[in-house]
């Protein structure tokens, strides 16, 4: 980057006179700027790279603490899949719980955000205050005892549905507020025009507005995916049956280093659990960033 700025400066010398600092040969400012940012990027990447390398190291290398493997061993993934079928079962639990939560929360947030912005609604202010208020209150922690009671009374403890229902609320307030921010960017004239053309409130929502908030939906999916995929506290509290456990509880309760769970093997499980999120994000980041800037950060 520093190189490109200096080369462009040599082509157009006038520009350097007006904007760049006096020393023209090396752009120290640019080097310092990019160097510092790259340092922070390395801070982020190195721990993740370490665990990725750990999952393909030989067991001997894992115990000596070398960063780059001296001896590669790619069998740990196969070991987990073949010898530890219960892990795949737990992974299935996580997938079911996460997909259900994401779909339900998105439906709630899309309909709710639409109603709060474009429909006549008495008590709108009350609802908004409650939603915003719940963000400033340790809701997740305080409600735990009562959620345990509700799920016990409904016979939903140790079931996956029993996790999904409270999971929907984990990001519900945030999601509704994100969608409200997105719908507020759409001018009421578009809604009026749709009404003129004979759309009822549902058709306006489904045919006219939904395509306009696509980027917001990407933000919703990613935010809710991350929360549900990694939720620990409720899963730890409501589930005590091994076969209903989700991956975060399994990972957190497995002690690495001994017997079947040598570090590279548990690291392989770790990579299997975290990469889907990163891949989805890498694919959807363009819309995610757009969504964030279009209104998701404006609530």
């Amino acid at each position, binding site marked *: 980057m520093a190189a490109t700025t200096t080369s462009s400066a040599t082509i157009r010398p006038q520009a350097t006179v007006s904007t760049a600092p006096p020393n023209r040969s090396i752009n120290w400012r640019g080097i310092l700027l990019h160097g510092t940012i790259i340092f922070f990027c390395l801070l982020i990447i190195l721990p993740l790279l370490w665990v990725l390398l750990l999952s393909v190291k030989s067991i001997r290398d894992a115990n000596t*603490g070398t960063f780059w493997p001296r001896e590669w061993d790619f069998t740990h993934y196969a070991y987990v899949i073949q010898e530890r079928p219960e892990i795949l079962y737990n992974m299935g639990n996580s997938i079911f719980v996460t997909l259900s939560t994401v779909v339900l929360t998105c439906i709630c947030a899309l309909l709710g955000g639409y109603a709060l912005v474009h429909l006549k609604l*008495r008590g709108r202010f009350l609802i908004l205050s409650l939603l915003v208020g719940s963000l400033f209150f340790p809701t997740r922690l305080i*409600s735990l005892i009562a*959620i345990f009671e509700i799920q016990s009374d409904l016979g939903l403890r140790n079931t996956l549905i029993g996790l999904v229902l409270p999971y929907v609320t984990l990001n519900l307030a945030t999601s509704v507020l994100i969608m409200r921010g997105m719908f507020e960017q759409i001018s009421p004239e578009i809604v009026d025009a749709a009404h003129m053309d004979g759309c009822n409130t549902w058709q306006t929502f489904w045919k006219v507005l939904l395509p306009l908030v696509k980027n917001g939906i990407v933000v919703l999916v990613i935010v809710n995916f991350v929360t549900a995929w990694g939720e620990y506290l409720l899963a730890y509290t409501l589930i005590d049956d091994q076969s209903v456990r989700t991956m975060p509880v399994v990972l957190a309760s497995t002690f690495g280093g001994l017997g079947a769970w040598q570090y590279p093997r548990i690291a392989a499980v770790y990579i299997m659990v975290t990469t889907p999120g990163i891949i989805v994000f890498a694919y959807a980041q363009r819309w995610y960033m757009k969504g964030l800037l279009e209104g998701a950060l404006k609530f």
Partner: protein
Amino acid sequence: MANVIVPDNHNSPFERIKREIKHGSSWLYLLPALVFFIGYQVYPIIRVFVLSFTDYRLLAADEAQFIGLQNYANAVVDPVVHQGLLRAGYFTLLFLPGTIFVPLFVAILVDRVKNQRIASLYKIILLIPAVIPGPMIFVLWKWLYDFEIGPINTFLIEGLHLFNYRNAPQWLGKSNLAIPAIAIMEVWWGIGYHTIFFLAGLATIPKEMIDAARVDGANEWQLFWRITLPRLRAIMLILVVLRFGSAMAVIDEYLIFGSFDRTLPTYTWTVYMWHLAFQLGDRLQGYAAAIGWIGAGVMLVVVALLFYIFRNRD
């Protein structure tokens, strides 16, 4: 006759019900969100508030009795509660400045990158931890801090030669470093997301304003204090309040890093509440509920103070 009825028609019960149904259809859109919000957030909080005035024990056979403020009276003088709140407060003090100022610094740097492609590459790399769920981050850092295989100690010993294998720091467990170690991890986790927050705020500052100030001879430091910081106050307020709330109520980290040992620095009021409610003796859920509400009350007072400090003085 007709003259009397027609103006009245607007307010006839039939018309009113029709209007209500029409307006009610708006409520129908809000209904799914409300069902979940009330069922699993509003009601549980009220229910826990009610429980906090009873001697409810999950495993006891006898009915719960209303005991007034007894739980609160006991909790206020309970040394474990005091210690737990202080430990959570210590963590918050370490974590909060780091999680505000490090991303602010990074955001100011990334904001200066002229090449949009490189800038967005930086943003994507910084955002990677934001798409890894919290508990996975905690598991990863538990390994990073590990005394035997952890790369952090390996780096300190073999990379920097600051320690040897006998005096290397013990990061987790019964160690003074446990809370700072968790704070460092939390700052790391939040860098990307908070940087994006600040970048959105920086984008709203008109570039002409900065250029004009430069022409008037303002240096970078003055630009930061006079223009950037005041313009970011609203975003800072939101972040400080939200992160304060999440920091004081942290529990997953302590459950994953520590255990139910009261002498550990990670045994805070949240862990105490969980321990009482779901593991100790008869499961003293009434008492645990009172501790939860005391913690929440302390937090709400501080949040009100923060709003007062950051209030708009213009």
